[in-house]
């Protein structure tokens, strides 16, 4: 497959302005099949906005978005559902697409919430709801998966398991993932490309490239830089050809 055909979504110098204030500007990035692109950055740096631009939720944007797929799964950061609606987990799984019952069960099993299938959505805990959201997004077998803080409120062991699941899904479905996360440690073990935002793209590249970037260091501090380097170090043992770069 040529490089051109594997592109799922491409942002060209994209930005979004609300009430005369730029939420984010000048973002260029590409999500390809089977690749995980992670957005990092402090609060209010425009991560969720960038995801919504990529998804086409924001319409009047600067720059442009090229989207090459309609099979999209989305886990939003904030979701305000009106709980006066009678809605069970099962109904929620069928929200945007009719999916076979086996597939629903499989997805709920993978995220460990199959026992909640007939529960009312309003009665779930934050972590349980998050697992349902992830199950819903993956059960669609999407080509593009956009995950905005997907494991918020999930317990620590669950968090690691879910990130492993996300990585596995990216491999088995060969889908592209746009991931937003605060958890640098866990995220970097899976990411192919990191974009560090602070109202604009402050730096981007492999986790290694970003870790060495000075702007990144000032934004996140020395410690965050070390987290990335630690990961790269582990990685280096496997791919010794990169060990040279580490020593620089």
């Amino acid at each position, binding site marked *: 497959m040529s490089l051109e055909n594997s592109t799922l979504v491409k942002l060209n110098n994209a930005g979004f302005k609300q009430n005369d204030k730029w939420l984010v500007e000048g973002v260029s990035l590409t999500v390809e099949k089977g690749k995980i692109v992670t957005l990092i950055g402090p609060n209010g740096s425009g991560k969720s906005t960038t995801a*919504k631009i990529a*998804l*086409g*939720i924001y319409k009047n944007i600067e720059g442009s978005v090229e989207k090459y797929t*309609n099979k*999209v*799964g*989305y886990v*939003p950061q904030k*979701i*305000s*559902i*009106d709980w*006066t*609606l*009678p*809605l*069970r987990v*099962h*109904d*929620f799984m069928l*929200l*945007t*697409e009719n999916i076979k019952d086996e597939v629903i069960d499989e997805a709920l099993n993978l995220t460990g919430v199959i026992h909640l299938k007939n529960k*009312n959505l309003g009665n779930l805990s934050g972590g349980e709801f998050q697992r349902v959201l992830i199950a819903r997004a993956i059960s*669609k077998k999407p080509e593009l998966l*956009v995950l905005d803080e997907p494991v918020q409120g999930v317990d620590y062991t669950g968090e690691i398991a879910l990130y492993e699941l996300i990585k596995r899904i990216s491999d088995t479905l060969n889908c592209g993932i746009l991931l937003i996360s605060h958890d640098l440690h866990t995220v970097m073990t899976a990411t192919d490309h990191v974009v560090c935002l602070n109202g604009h793209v402050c730096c981007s590249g492999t986790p290694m490239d970003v870790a060495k970037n000075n702007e990144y260091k000032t934004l996140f501090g020395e410690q965050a830089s070390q987290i990335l380097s630690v990961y790269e170090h582990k990685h280096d043992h496997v791919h010794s050809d990169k060990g040279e770069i580490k020593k620089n």
Partner: protein
Amino acid sequence: MFDDFFIRALIAGLGIALVTGPLGCFVVWRRLSYFGDTLSHSALLGVTIAYSFEINIALTVFLISSVVALILIQLQKKTNLPGDALLGLLAHSSLAVGLVVIGFLTFIRFDIMGLLFGDILAVTTDDLLIIWTGGALILLVLKLIWKPLFASTVNYELAEAEGLNPDRAKAIFTILMAAVIAISIKMVGLLLITGMLIIPAAMARNLSDSPQKMVLFSIIGGLLSVLLGLFSSLEFNTSSGPSIIMAALVLFILSLLNIKQSIKLKN
């Protein structure tokens, strides 16, 4: 069979209940009660225009209500006024315009009470045709837009992100609202149509744990309300609209017992 006014009223009412059931659920879910009120108040203007030019009432009401809905959408975009203020503005000004126009139409005898509260004597065989074909069309369109409309009712951004085009579904739903008001105005009356949309749906909410169940119970509740309401309207010589709505209210009160029971069970 259609010669008997009561049979006609019954068939008309049941047809209306089949349509207001599912639509009413969306009115409750999307919090559109006052939107329904605004459209039905503007219907008075439609009725007066229909009388002045001797055109079909349902058609004129449908057109006027659609225009008011479009004006509302434009005002929402162009002004900073809150939604409920805009709804009130349109509801009362269109009602006022309608009443003033009626004042000028001295050459026509109006049954204002019938217009406001419904009149079972007024239902003609033509009306039955409009209600049942119009109703079938409304239900068909609602079924077609169900997925995007329901998904965006639950969460707009999910629906938009996953390619369901919720804005189009919302626009079509607005037109369906105007249509359901147009076909039910003669029977229920323009002051009480929103009640026909909301009360059976509210009753159904008390009995349901899934959207499909709520739609089903809302239809059943509407049908029962029409039956009970029309028979008591005949018995006690009351207006059809208030009688139907009162029957719906009784069913709603009964449905509250179900809530009490389930709360007791939980405790």
